[in-house]
């Protein structure tokens, strides 16, 4: 039995359904990200688990106990907010010790646990500072320590990094993951940033309009997106529509050119249109002859640091092609140059929707 179980969890605000029946099982110690655009229901789901929103239907179980109707103060769930939400009238140490004080721990025990938590977030020397004297990143680390100090069963994080600078975002997300591993706590992390979700999580849940699009490991999500929404939301993607030329052998007609995919189709689908997705990094320019080839013209090239992204026009359709920024290996084509785009049949993702 899983540690957290959501069973047919739903939420309606008036006539609008924010979360459609949601079933989810999270294992003990797992780090699960909930990823989706704003308004997809991810934050509402988190708030239902925390107890700040009452579900319209369904149930929430943690460690076998039904907590659907338990008030938030009795759930033993730690939560970290986007806005830090530190108590401005209390010092760092008082903030971290707040939950322990409520739990009526002895002064000594509180002191000990607070020191422990300060060590985990590397902020021992800030114990007596007030939140307004700290940077955003420091405040969020204190908020994390405050949530973890009560040894919660579950840690919920609601876009904890969205208000921070890019550099701090990266370092803090590594800290969060390291602390979560160290304490072995079960964590649910809500974000709209796919990079965060993919880099941090054991599994990623992708939501859109209150529905689950896909649940899987980061690799599954990135390499085998189940729906066109997932494919486009995660990473950069070329999508093109082609007609089935030979359904059985998986040969598709794209304008005046043809290419092959590794799937085979039902003969009845012959002549219909299918959507094919291609990751830019799986395409190459002017490579080996044996692969799929599409002829096109370079319209634009953009330097993205380690890679160069080419915009290649093929059959009046722009394809992004990522090439390593390494001129020792190959000469990079110029704008306006005619090129051949190469890719393997098994790199083509045929999308369900």
């Amino acid at each position, binding site marked *: 039995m899983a540690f957290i179980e959501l069973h047919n969890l739903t939420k309606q605000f008036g006539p609008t359904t924010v979360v459609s029946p949601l079933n989810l099982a999270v294992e003990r110690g797992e780090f699960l990200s909930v990823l989706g655009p704003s308004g997809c229901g991810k934050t509402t789901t988190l708030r239902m688990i925390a*107890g*700040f*929103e*009452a579900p319209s239907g369904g149930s929430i179980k943690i460690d076998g106990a039904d907590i659907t109707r338990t*008030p*938030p103060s009795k759930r033993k769930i730690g939560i970290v907010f986007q806005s830090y939400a530190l108590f401005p009238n209390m010092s760092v140490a008082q903030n971290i010790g707040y939950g322990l004080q409520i739990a009526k721990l002895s002064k000594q025990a509180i002191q000990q646990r607070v020191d422990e938590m300060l060590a985990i977030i590397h902020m021992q020397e800030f114990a007596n500072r007030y939140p307004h004297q700290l940077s955003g990143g420091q405040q969020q680390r204190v908020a994390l320590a405050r949530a973890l100090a009560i040894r919660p069963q579950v840690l919920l994080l609601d876009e904890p990094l969205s208000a921070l600078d890019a550099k701090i975002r990266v370092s803090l997300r590594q800290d969060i993951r390291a602390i979560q591993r160290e304490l072995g706590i079960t964590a649910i992390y809500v974000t709209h940033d796919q990079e965060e979700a993919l880099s941090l999580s054991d599994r990623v849940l992708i939501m859109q309009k209150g529905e689950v699009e896909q649940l899987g490991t980061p690799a599954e999500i990135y390499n085998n997106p189940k729906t066109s929404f997932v494919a486009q939301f995660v990473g950069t993607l070329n999508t093109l529509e082609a007609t089935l030329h030979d359904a059985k052998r998986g040969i598709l007609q794209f304008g005046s050119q043809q290419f092959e995919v590794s799937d085979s189709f039902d003969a009845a689908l012959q002549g219909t249109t299918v959507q094919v997705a291609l990751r830019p990094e799986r395409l190459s320019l002017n490579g080996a002859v044996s692969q799929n080839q599409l002829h096109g013209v370079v319209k634009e090239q953009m330097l993205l640091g380690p890679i160069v992204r080419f915009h290649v026009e093929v059959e009046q359709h722009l394809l992004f092609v990522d090439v390593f920024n390494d001129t020792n290996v190959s000469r990079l084509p110029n704008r306006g140059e005619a090129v051949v785009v190469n890719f393997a049949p098994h790199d083509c993702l045929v999308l369900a929707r």
Partner: protein
Amino acid sequence: MKKRPSLIAWLFIVLGTSYFLLPLIATFLFSLRAKKDTLGFTAYQRVFEDSSFYATFRFSALMALLTIIASMLLLVPTVYWAYLRHPRLHRLIELVSLMPFVIPPIVLVFGLIKSYSRPPVILVQSRGLLIAGYMVLALPYMYRAIDAGLRATNVKTLTEAAQSLGAGWPRIIWQVIVPNIRGALVNGAFLTFATVLGELTLAQYLAWPAFGPYLARISQNKAYEPAALTIISFALTWVIFGIVLLFNSKDQQQTQFGGTH
């Protein structure tokens, strides 16, 4: 988890509102009883037939208008200059504009009479002194309004842009700065108007036939007319604040309230 309106909140609001509405209702009902055994607007009729009602009202409205104009002429360039050239003076101006809070109207008028009723400068019989006193009363919120307006406007950039296009100082103030803080000015102007219109202390001790002393005299000598006048002043205050709110909702600026009592 709870999303229902709180019953206690409702209770507070209802109790609070009734405390505020009761005196108004009582006064209104009272004002209708000028004629024995019938309800009617006789009291209002009498007020509107009284020539000193108009005379004192006109006088106070004129004083209010002059106060507003003089305050703006004095404050807009000053605060603008401070923003542009003298950030340190800005603190001092702010401090001075808080001083009227320390000097209540009754103390102010006392000091004015002491200072200006004997040589070398005798001003107590001049309307100028009354207006100067009103300008002092209006200073805190006039200043705050103008300050808020200028803070919301990028004074420096606007000025530099105007200068680069060849505008001189008067033109910059009147055509660039003033239109940009129009909402704030209207706000301050109406607050000043509301304050000066019914002001009693200064007008009484400087002995001017203003609306405030008129109200005081009527309320001591008559029974029903003061009730009518109370309702009229309350309605007038509403009209003035209605205009302020209207302007502010257009200009998207925060309304400030507060005056002297």
